[in-house]
Structure formats: C-alpha cells, structure tokens
C-alpha cells in the first residue's frame, strides 16, 4: 500500500479540516458556532452517503431500464408474431414477416464453433503459462495475452474480412469440401461453394477473439491452487500432466467453467467481429461454409435502415432475446466464479 509517510500526511490533512478547524472556531466564538459547523459537517456526511447510495441504485436502474425499454420496444413485434417469432425462419422486410430462428441459430452455431476451438486452446495456453513456460517468459506472455484481450473487436472483424476470409476461401475451404465430399454427414456440413465469408469463418474469428480472454481467466483460476497441493502431488512422483489432471483441474473446475461461460457470453453478444464476415443471410443452412447471420449482426446491419415500426420492433425483440440469453449465461458464470473466489479466500 502506501508508505507511512504519505499516510500520516493524509491523516493530518483530514484532521485539519475537522478537528483543528473546529477547535480554532470554538475558541474564537461561542458554542452556537460550533454546533452549526457540526451540523454542517453532519449534513455533508449525510448527503455524500445518500449520493453514493443513489449511484449504487442507479446501476440497478440501468439494468432494469434496459429490460423495460427492450420489452417496450419489442411489444408491437411480440403482439404481431407471438411465440412463432422464435421458430420462424422468415425475414422479409417487404411483407413485414419476421422470425428469429435463423439469427438465433447463427448466434448459437458461431458461438459453439468458437468455444470448440477457444476452450481447448485457451486451457492449453493457461496450462503452458502456469506449468511449462520458462519463468522469464511467464510475465511477458501473460501480460501480452491480457493486453490482447482488451483489443476492440472491430480489429478482429477487419482482419477477418481482409485477411482470414480470402485465405480460407482460396486455401482451406476447397480442401475441406473435397476432403469431406464423400463422407455422408460431413459432406453436407462442408457443402457449397467456398465463399470465404460464412458461419465457419465467423466462428473462427470469434474463437481467436475470446481465446485471450479464456486463457487469461483460466490462468488466474489455475493460480488460485495452493502450491502445497501441487507440491504434495509432485512429491509422490506425479508427472506434470497428472498434477494438472488430478490436482489443478478438480480444484479449479467451477472457476474454469465460469471462465468459459464468461467467454461464451462474450461470443454470443459479440457484434463487430462477426458482422464483417458472416454474410448476413437470413437462412438456416446445413453447411458451415454458407453465409448466415447472428442476432447482433442482424441488428448492426439493419437497424439504421429499418423502415416501419414493425421492422424496428422485430429487431429490438432480437436484441431482447440476445440479452436474455447472455444474461443467464453471464449470471451462471458469475455465480461459478464467485464460488471459486470464496474457496480461495
């Protein structure tokens, strides 16, 4: 914390506003003045207390406001389409016929692809950082990963559009198509022309984006394991892998899952990284190479151009659905992370 020197100075500073000042005033004038000053201080105190309390309540109001305003905004669409909105694939602004199924499907599929790549790699990176990496490199690499977790998603999007998508289109996707062409299930998964942009590309970009996030949270969680536990395992001759598998992972399971859910929450709600490379096509295609859309990409692409109240309302309802999904994922994640914090405390 602070050295003794400045803290003593600060205490003196606090003292001369109240005590010293009070005493001087009291000696100068009568007792009435003193009570008046005390009353003023008490008032300042109370006002400050209530201000901070009000600010804390405002945080709750923000969340409540988000929910209320989204429900209010999507009310016309809810009335027009009811629960069919969730299952309908239609998206036709001209006839004002909207359904969320394609967008929900795209959101889920891209997030699943992202997690399928980012979770194993992220855990690998975290293990590398806590167990294998030479000591001199641990801090620099750890810091670099944390910094990368803060890079705005639009950077990943623009890179995906100009670098990754053309590369996938010319090199990876044709290979996938020909490799899986004759295998029953996979041939439909990797069917169609290689557009470059599409569900698979979007999932991959998301994976790269949440990777530093998952890696740095998992590393933090792994570091909560008391060294004694690991040393005991090493002491009876366990290998690094066995220490990870039978000591670190069981001890941190809840926290690691919480970290993954946090990453999933990010992937589900991510807008810019996906919007660039998804292709914005409102249909559910069995092929991962086909263009699709996600909830957030649909809103980002169409909201400003939406004509008519029903169109806007349908987009806001999409936002509401996204918010509800991420709310539950994040709430679960926080609950799990809270449990590991209590454990380590």
């Amino acid at each position, binding site marked *: 914390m602070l050295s003794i020197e400045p803290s003593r100075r600060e205490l003196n500073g606090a003292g001369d506003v109240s005590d010293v000042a*009070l005493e001087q005033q009291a000696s100068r004038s009568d007792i009435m003045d003193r009570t008046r000053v005390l009353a003023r201080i008490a008032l300042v*105190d109370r006002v400050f207390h209530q201000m901070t309390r009000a*600010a804390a309540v405002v945080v709750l109001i923000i969340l409540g406001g988000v929910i209320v305003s989204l429900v209010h905004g999507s009310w016309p669409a809810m009335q027009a389409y009811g629960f069919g909105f969730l299952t309908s694939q239609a998206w036709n602004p001209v006839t004002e016929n909207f359904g969320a199924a394609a967008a929900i499907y795209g959101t889920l599929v891209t997030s699943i692809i992202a997690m399928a790549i980012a979770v194993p790699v992220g855990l*690998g990176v975290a293990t590398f950082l806590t167990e294998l990496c030479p000591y001199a490199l641990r801090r620099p*690499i750890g810091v670099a990963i944390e910094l990368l977790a803060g890079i705005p998603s639009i950077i990943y999007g623009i890179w995906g559009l*100009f670098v990754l998508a053309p590369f996938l289109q010319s090199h990876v996707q044709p290979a996938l198509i020909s490799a899986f062409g004759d295998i029953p299930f996979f041939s439909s998964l990797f069917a169609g022309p290689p557009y470059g942009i599409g569900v698979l590309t979007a999932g991959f970009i998301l994976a790269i984006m949440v990777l530093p996030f998952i890696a740095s949270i998992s590393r933090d969680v792994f570091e909560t394991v008391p060294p004694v536990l690991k040393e005991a395992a090493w002491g009876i001759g366990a290998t690094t892998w*066995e220490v990870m598998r039978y000591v670190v992972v069981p001890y941190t399971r809840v926290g690691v899952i919480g970290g993954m859910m946090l990453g999933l929450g990010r992937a589900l709600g991510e807008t810019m990284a996906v919007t660039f490379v998804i292709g914005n096509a409102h249909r559910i295609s069995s092929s991962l190479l086909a263009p699709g859309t996600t909830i957030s990409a649909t809103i980002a692409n169409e909201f400003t151009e939406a004509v008519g109240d029903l169109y806007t309302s349908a987009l806001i309802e999409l936002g509401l659905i996204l918010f509800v999904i991420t709310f539950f994922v994040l*709430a679960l994640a926080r609950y799990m992370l809270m449990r590991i914090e209590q454990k380590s405390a």
Partner: protein
Amino acid sequence: MSLYASRRGANAMATTLCWVAAVFGLSWLLLILGSLVYEGVRGLSPAVFTEMTPPPGSKGGLLNAIAGSLVMTSIGVAIGTPLGMLAGTYMAEYGRYSKLTMIVRFINDILLSAPSIVIGLFVYEILVHPMGHFSAISGAVALALLVVPVVVRTTEDMLLLVPGSMREAASALGAPRAHVVGKVAYRAAKAGLITGVLLAVARVSGETAPLLFTALNNQFWSSDLTAPMASLPVVIFQFALSPYKDWQQLAWTGALLITVAVLALSIAARALSAGRRNSK
C-alpha cells in the same frame, strides 16, 4: 508397456499439446497485430490527421472521425466516471456488507460483459427515438453506460484494498465519514482509481456497436452535440465494408490508430497499478 512408460508417454503428449496450443494461439494473435501494422502504416500520413473523411474515390483523412471519437469518449467518461465512483464508494465504504451491495455487485458484473449492442438499443429507445434523430450526445450516453460498470468494479476493488486501520485512524481523530472517504481512502487508492478510468477509456474507445444507431455517422466536421457525429470505429466499419480501395486503406489506418491508443491506455493503466504495488 510398463506403467511408468505409459505415464511418461501421457505426460509427454499432454505437455506437447500445451506447447502446440500456446504456439497456435499466440501466433494467430501475432498474425493479427502484424497485418494490422503492415496494412495500417502504409496509409499513415499527415493527411490522416488533418483532412476530413473523403467521398469515395478521392483522398482524405480521418480528422472528423478522430475528433468525434474524442468528444464522445470524453463526454461518456465525464458522465460515467462520477456515477461509477460514487456507486463503487458506496459498495466499499458505506454498505460493504449490505444486501444492496451484493445485488449491485452481481448486476454490475453482468453489465460489465453484457452485449454492447443491447446498450445501443437501450439508448436508442430512451434518447434517439424520443428526440426523433440521431445525435452525438446519445452516443456519449451509450458510452457512459459502458464506462459505469468498469469504474464501479475497479473503484470497489481498489477501495477494498485500503487498510481499514487508515480509516480507523482518521475516524479516531474525529474526521467525519465523508472526509475519511474523500481525504484518506480516495488518496490511498488514487493510482487504482485512475487505472480504472484509463481501463474504461480503453474499453469504450473501440466500441462500435452502441454508436451505430445512436451517434450514427457524419461525413463532415460537426461540433453539434445534437447532430449525428462521426467516430473512428463506425467509420472503420463503413469504410471496410465498402468496395473502394481508398476507403479500405483508411479503415486499416483507423484500426491501427485505435489499437495503438487502446494498447497505450492499457499499458499506462498497468504501469500505474504496478508502480503502486511496488511502493507497498
């Protein structure tokens, strides 16, 4: 194969996979930064900072977008920081063990990672729709709503690190509670609080989604807060998706500028809190 050999084999395989994962993961990230610098630096010129965003086919810069980003981020931080600091103060100083604090902490953590596009929709509903048009001020409010959770979180964390004995000492001298908080706790946690604000700035300066339908975009210079205003991320979004080579080049350059700014802010924040830790 003996048990010993199979255990060794499993260990070798697992550690190799971890190495592979680390190299795989880090190389993608390096690749992104590499191509960002390569593409961005090519378009870097004084004109980027002195000229307006051009119509397709002609030369120009990003001046109005950079200015718009600065204006909206400043206003957003100016609104969000006091609110977040006060809320964080309540949680750490006044109601440390109260039920309200527990709820606010939970809700705040959710807001911290809630999809930013939803915040954009919220501000559209409460500001843009009633006003009838897009405006810079609603963009700033959207950013402020993203600043609040970051500042709340860091303020609470940093104030909790201040030893209780310092507060007790101040109280023992007769300092009123507000003075204990303002003159002792805030000062002791100053570096941490500034770190929080820097992190919040870094977080919002690259945000695109909440600006798309609040501040919209503006091809020209604008200092009118009630009119649409350009911002760097939205211009990047628009230019990158355009078919024009000039625009795409400007998008890369803008992306480089944002990344450099965000990295600089995060490193500054890190240096500040590290300096604090060393003076322990």
